[in-house]
């Protein structure tokens, strides 16, 4: 199945809700109606053999109306085809996809940690790369690069550490 065939198939299933395009040799499926987002992913898995989940990417667009954008990277080993499913939202809340792919668990936790996307229905949504006492989400565009004042927020081991630089 090529991307054109997949597009035709999806357009028949979800008329007027998708925008499929190819950019820099990558195939994107933009879900215009956020309500259909999970139905599109389930259809891709069950009817178009996209069983292998590659990645979950969140992007912060502070100047746009839809401030957060989520990109799910999927690969079909059967058809040797890669698609990116995109969905955008005004606030940082998106439904989780851990019930469709169990491997999305860690990927979504990472995006929650670094970008502050709240995945509704996620079984274990807590910080993964940064400690619990970290404030904010570093990959957002308004987070300063060298913000290190949080270093002294906690003394979790009771060692009396003081960071000055």
């Amino acid at each position: 199945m090529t991307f054109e065939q997949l597009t035709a198939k999806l357009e028949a299933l979800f008329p007027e809700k998708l925008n499929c395009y190819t950019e820099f040799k990558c195939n994107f499926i933009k879900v215009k109606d956020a309500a259909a987002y999970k139905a599109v992913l389930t259809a891709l898995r069950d009817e178009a053999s996209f069983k292998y989940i590659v990645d979950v990417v969140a992007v912060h667009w502070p100047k746009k109306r839809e401030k957060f954008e989520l990109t799910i990277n999927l690969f079909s080993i059967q058809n040797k085809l890669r698609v990116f499913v995109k969905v955008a939202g005004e606030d940082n809340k998106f439904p989780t996809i851990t019930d469709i792919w169990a491997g999305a668990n860690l990927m979504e936790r990472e995006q929650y940690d670094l970008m502050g996307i709240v995945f509704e229905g996620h079984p274990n949504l807590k910080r993964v790369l940064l400690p619990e006492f970290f404030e904010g989400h570093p990959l957002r565009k308004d987070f300063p690069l060298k913000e290190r004042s949080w270093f002294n927020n906690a003394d979790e081991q009771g060692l009396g550490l003081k960071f000055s630089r």
Partner: protein
Amino acid sequence: MGLIDRKLPDNVLTTTVDSVINYCRKGSIWPVTFGLACCAIEMMACGAAKYDLDRMGIIFRATPRQSDLMLVAGTVTRKMAPVVRKVYLQMPEPKWVIAIGSCATSGGIYNTYSTVQGVDEVIPVDFYVPGCPPRPEAFFDAITALQKKIMTEKVVRK
């Protein structure tokens, strides 16, 4: 030395307690394996066949309780810093620390929100080895420098 030289029987040498103990210490440095990042791979390469740290009496120990040298090889982040400190506190005296690589020395290229700018914010450091990662020869240089330092220490009066 000259006065008592001929008054002692054969096979007796005179020296100081300091230098005997220091001599033993410098020949059996046991570092704690504390690989944090890229430099740890070069540290492993030092321990392997070609460079062979064993010939200097260096055997990596997996526990801080049995070691007297800490090789901090890699980037220290805020999340890791209390662990570094804790492992250091668990080591028995006398203990020395070598910071390996630019990250452990000064934060290196990682001047970001999560990286500690040099391990000397957390623990005292004896020697800094530059490089990203440093070559094994630089490791050996640091270790021979440490051995020289050990020979100058006063054991009894400490």
